[in-house]
């Protein structure tokens, strides 16, 4: 018989395990180039936002990441544009992904930081490796702050994703993958 406290710990562990498995599944879809299946994990009302990271003076960290309200970001879009990206990759004539790059998503440091009804807030870190043609390599390291929504079909849908890429000048010529 578990104590009330142990029951709470177990529930949290199970939830984290479920979220981790969801993230590994998502990463596998991207790495296996199953983009249509990946876009099916995206909620219709998603806000997918990767701000630009500024170099700012101490004390001005509030404006380190560009705002979705009135500034320029690397990505700041909804499902319509994300789905357009998937359709473009799937043409086979999107030259910067033809032939496909070898991309691997490593997702770590998963934390469930809030539960609100059928939505949870989860943070994680990513390390994305891209190897293209012979020797082109791009590394993308950063953090994600998600809102995930329970879904009967897919388990979860991604309802909001803030992606903090740890770069200022983007060191890759393009970003063709998803985070």
């Amino acid at each position, binding site marked *: 018989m578990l104590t009330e406290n142990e029951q709470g710990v177990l529930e949290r562990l199970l939830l984290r395990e479920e979220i981790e498995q969801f993230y590994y599944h998502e990463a596998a879809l991207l790495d296996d180039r199953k983009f249509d299946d990946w876009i099916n994990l995206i909620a219709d009302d998603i806000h997918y936002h*990767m701000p*630009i990271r*500024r*170099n*700012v*003076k101490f004390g*001005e960290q509030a404006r380190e990441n*560009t705002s979705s309200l*009135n*500034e*320029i*970001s*690397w*990505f*700041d*879009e909804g499902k*319509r*544009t994300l789905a*357009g*990206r998937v*359709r*473009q990759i799937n*043409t086979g*004539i*999107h*030259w*910067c992904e033809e032939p496909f790059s070898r991309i691997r998503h490593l997702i770590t440091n998963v934390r469930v930081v809030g539960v609100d009804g059928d939505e949870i807030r989860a943070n994680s870190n990513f390390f994305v490796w891209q190897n293209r*043609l012979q020797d*082109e390599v791009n590394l993308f390291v950063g953090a994600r702050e998600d809102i995930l929504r329970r879904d009967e079909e897919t388990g979860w849908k991604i309802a909001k994703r803030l992606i903090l890429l740890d770069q*200022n*000048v*983007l*060191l*890759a*010529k*393009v*970003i*063709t993958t998803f985070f």
Partner: protein
Amino acid sequence: MASLVRSFGDRSLRSLVDLDRGLVSREIYVNEDLYKMELEQVFTRAWLFIGHEAQVPNPGDFVVSRMGEEEVILVRDRKNQLHVFLNTCRHRGMKVCRYDDGNTLVFTCPFHGWSYDTDGRLVGVPYFDAAYKGDMDKSEWGLPEVAQMCNFYGSIWATWDKGAPSFESYLGPYSDTVRRAFQSSDGEDNGVELFNPVYKWRIPCNWKFPGFSFDGDRAHAAMTHRSINVAAIGPQGDAGGGSRAPIRAPFPYTDYEMTVPELGHGGHNAIYEQPGLAEYRDTWFTEPGVDDYYRAMREKKREKYRGQYIVGETALIWPNVNIQPHRILIWHPHSVGVTESWRAYPIDRMAPQHVKDAQRRYMMRYGGPCGLTESDDMENWNYASAASFGTVAKRYPYNFMMGAGHAFVDEQRAPGMTLNYEVAEENQRSRLRRWLEFMEAGSWEDIYPVNPVSPSAGEATKSKSKVES
């Protein structure tokens, strides 16, 4: 590697650029010595785009920018004057500013503590009295400042060469194009601001791949961008086959490559069959309310330009900036095989928020390193550059023959311009011709024309443009 560069004024460079036949040696895109020579011969002489006054609206505001490989600071001093300084301490070279932008009273070097006022004066030196004992005159050790700066309807340009002609002369027949690009959509001068911040990203290719291609390579679009319409990123969404460009309703027109060979500038531009501006046609089907704004603005602009023929909506301004309505594209040399691409997006300063948002989102999904259109350009420039470095590859010149010998002029409808069929390489040949002139020249006095009279530099331009130096 044997140096191709023997001395300034050496005519051996001519063997690399045969513009009559349209043959250009790959060396000029891959040779390290020529690249270093470009930094001196081109990028310390030419007028370069720095930014916009709206990026630094208040005294003490600064934003870092770039000229060639080197970082500069655009700053508004406490007396409201704009300056462009090299970002390096005069003592031991440390960057005096390591922030992208901000507001400051002084730039204090974190190495030994020399500090500079926002007007560039050296105002603080630790141990000044005790150690220098009066031997150093601080007034001689301010931040290095550009030789000339021009505020052209809000856009800021600069050159390190005091012998360079005035910016308007430098622009020549394209000065009206640049002026209009900084108008709000109702045709009011200095009517825009830039979205913050500027995109900055690295492309593994020589800067001339994007720099000399943009607004001069219409032949690439059908092949490079074959996959874009499926994404339907244009303001009209799926309507019209998913075109990435807004729907327009121009007057009957013919498109041409339109260049100024003696200055190196050029764009893809239309000659319209009738004067004035065409009516606005709705295109923002994906963003309610945006068309209402642009339609009203267009009506004001149509009134303003009634009876006037408008020639030249976009231009690549030699050497590395493309000015278009709603976007400014800059390609900074970073090394012989790497370009640091910068992208700024002007927007009507007085536009309502929903219009600014719509335009901003469209620009983000259209271009830059995460934009759906230009990602395929980057792949092509990347591997065209990579495949040009080889010993054998360099034996084969690039082919710039398209339309060579078929250029013509139309002084009445496009004064000062040289025209060619809309798919040609006339604009690129102009840039290469100007490149050769800059690379051979000992000084601006050798670079013809030294001070051409701009046919478009009217009185209005002179009175409204504030030129500071």
